[in-house]
């Protein structure tokens, strides 16, 4: 396992991700369409202010920091860390069985920008705050859901 010196040791344990039978799909809006469809081109698109150059999420028609309206979606690396997570154990949705991990992923580009998603390909009990993750996309009809898995090199195989 390759790790750089500043990379915390992870105890994450790999498991095979099985795509659920069902996912509830979003209704993209003008401000969320890029987020839900960027995966078509393999890109995670997050809103950025072209005036102050800072990222923000969810997308909006103005930068909440500097109030510029020169804003729009741009690709990010898709890498980040788990800022917070929960293991959901309650069966809410027929065809999407628990347990599964729901997490806030802080983006490598700017840690105070968080994306809520699932962390998969890892045993739920071995997910921890700070776990390094990377995005991949799962297509459902016209939606490409950004999902996250442990970044290459941080997981025990």
């Amino acid at each position, binding site marked *: 396992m390759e790790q750089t010196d500043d990379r915390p040791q992870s105890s994450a344990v790999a498991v095979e991700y099985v795509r659920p039978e069902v996912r509830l799909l979003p*209704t993209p809006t003008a401000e969320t369409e890029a987020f839900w469809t960027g995966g078509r081109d393999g890109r995670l698109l997050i809103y950025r202010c072209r005036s102050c150059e800072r990222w923000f999420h969810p997308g909006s028609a103005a930068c909440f920091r500097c109030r510029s309206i020169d804003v729009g979606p741009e690709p990010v690396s898709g890498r980040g860390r788990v800022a*917070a997570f929960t293991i959901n154990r*309650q069966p809410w949705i027929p065809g999407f069985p628990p347990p599964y991990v729901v997490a806030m992923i802080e983006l490598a580009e700017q840690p105070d920008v968080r994306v809520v998603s699932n962390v998969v390909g890892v045993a739920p009990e071995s997910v921890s705050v700070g776990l390094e993750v990377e995005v991949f996309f799962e297509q459902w009809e016209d939606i490409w859901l950004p999902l996250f898995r442990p970044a290459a090199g941080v997981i025990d195989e």
Partner: protein
Amino acid sequence: MSEPGVLFDGKAVLTGAGKSQVGRRLGRGGLELTIEAALRAIADAGLDPSAIDGVASYPGPGVPDPGFSGATVTELRNALGLRSTWFTSSMETAGQIGPAIDACMAVATGLAEHVLVFRSVWESTAQTAGRASVLVGGGRLTGHLEPFGPFGAVSAANWLAMPAQRYMHDFGLTREQLGAIAINARRNAGLNPDAVYRTPMTMEDYLEARMISDPFCLYDCDVPCDGATAVIISRREAAAGLPKPPLTVESVGTGMFERATWDQRADITTMAAHDAATTLWERTALRPADVDIAQLYDGFSFLTVQWLEALGFCEHGKVGEFIEGGHRIALDGELPLNTSGGQLSGGRLHGMGFLHEACVQLWGEGGDRQVRKPPELAAVAVGGGPVAGAMLLSRRD
């Protein structure tokens, strides 16, 4: 005459409180329950319905979630034939008691003399009939479910479990400490004949309960119920001669300093509660140490943790030590908490139940659950995540 510096010049007072039948799957209509609570509150204030010239409620019309609103202001006004000089409903406000704060402003400025403020839910009955359609109806997600539902996070339990677990990670809060909130609520509910769940609960029961979304188990989540709550907020001059000592609204907390989101707050171990609490204390000379009882929202146990630190009863991150063992928050403790059983055991009256219980305790009408030392100042705080509002009520003249 009120003291200088009291918010609203001391003109906003509570004169009555009422609650409908509360329970699981009552099978009664939302409007019927609302009318029951309203008429009880009006009678409690010693008023005739013809004296009610203002009406305010949360959330108002247009909310699709089944049973989230048992009746709107319009429905209640029409049903009771109320002649109003002022009325409002809102969801974009300081939590579920935001309209109560609006009512304080209305009476203080003379727009109304006696405002009926209510909150009505019948989620238990509605969800029994219609819940499945929300999640498997084949439609697409919109609104607050759009960002989270695709990842199976369809419940506020999921959205709030994340910051709860991060708080535990950062500050060492334990499940046993969270459990103290739930067990305290259940113990108090056992003394409240209106509470939904009254069977005693031990720490073992709590720790062995099935998990919903880590760190929340079943008993960290409140229980949907049917029921309505109402209070009467009056202009002080108009309260002269009424049967109960008026309760003064000493301050209100309405702050919201960041974007209203569940996931983007700069510090995810705090919530909008902290902003509401900041404004509450900015508007009064009273201090947290002056508070005798606390009625703090417990839609999830962790939200009470948030309010305890937001309101300054504990330092940020130190709530676990304060609630451990439950002694300080018990009826005979230094800060009796959620004396009716809260929403965890009393039922999810959605915020207004806490305001109702503060009135009951300040008037000394708590019966078996009345706190031992007659309270003079109550803190009421409702909401979680991006929803927050707070109020300080006193019995002083």
